[in-house]
């Protein structure tokens, strides 16, 4: 077995070993094909939905500030670790539903070829 396959098996094993830390993540993939200037809206590809396994990592709470130029609340940012084979190309227009809560994807994403870390913000 080559190192690539070995590492992929180790990722599978790690996700299996983490028990209830691993959550079901319903991914809804939408790709903006082009922008339609006549309707002033993006044209999206058909939604592609699938359920994968993910691990919630660091959560950044609401930022509260009264400085000029700062938002009063920038929303909760949640990092999510996924197997790269489960999510080929994360996109700004994708959403994830985890334990009934809908999250939107926030670029950029990190992908080491085996695991992908995405940042999510609440809201559909």
């Amino acid at each position, binding site marked *: 077995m080559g190192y690539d396959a070995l590492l992929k098996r180790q990722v599978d094993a790690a996700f299996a070993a983490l028990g209830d830390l691993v959550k079901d993540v319903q991914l809804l993939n939408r790709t*903006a*094909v082009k*922008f339609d*200037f006549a309707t*002033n809206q993006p044209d999206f590809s058909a939604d592609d939905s699938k359920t994968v396994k993910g691990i919630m990592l660091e959560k950044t709470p609401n930022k509260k500030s009264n400085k000029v130029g700062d938002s009063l609340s920038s929303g909760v940012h949640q990092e999510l670790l996924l197997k790269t084979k489960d999510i080929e*190309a994360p*996109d*700004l227009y994708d959403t994830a539903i985890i334990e009934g809560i809908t999250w939107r994807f926030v670029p950029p994403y990190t992908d080491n070829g085996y695991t992908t870390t995405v940042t999510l913000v609440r809201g559909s």
Partner: protein
Amino acid sequence: MARSKYSSLQEDINAIFASQPWLDLQIETHPEGFVGNTYEKEYVVVTIIASEPKTSITSVSGQILIDIYIPAGLGLKRAYEIADLLDEQMAGKVLYNTLAGTTQLGSSSLQGRGTDKDNQSLYRAIYSIPFTFFGV
């Protein structure tokens, strides 16, 4: 009608890029704020900067900036061609797609800006053209 001057301005500009003559050129065109998934070939991004208020509250003027992205390393010939195609659609035109007013476009200019900092495989030039929206 003053409250709709920005939407009307946008509608006038959008109509250019929704028109059949522009669509026939098959130049991928995005507004600022749109995230497409084909950034490895030529495309243009349209930004409307309505930054100069007028005495009339129904009017505004500013610049339309169009970022032209072309493959890097091939010179500027294609950027100039696209700028000429934009001029055909825009330079000196008066647009009136809504009842809220008319948009008058002026004379354009083009600036080369070097390779794109986010994607070194692309070269970026900026086509800009001044406008005034006259509200009624």
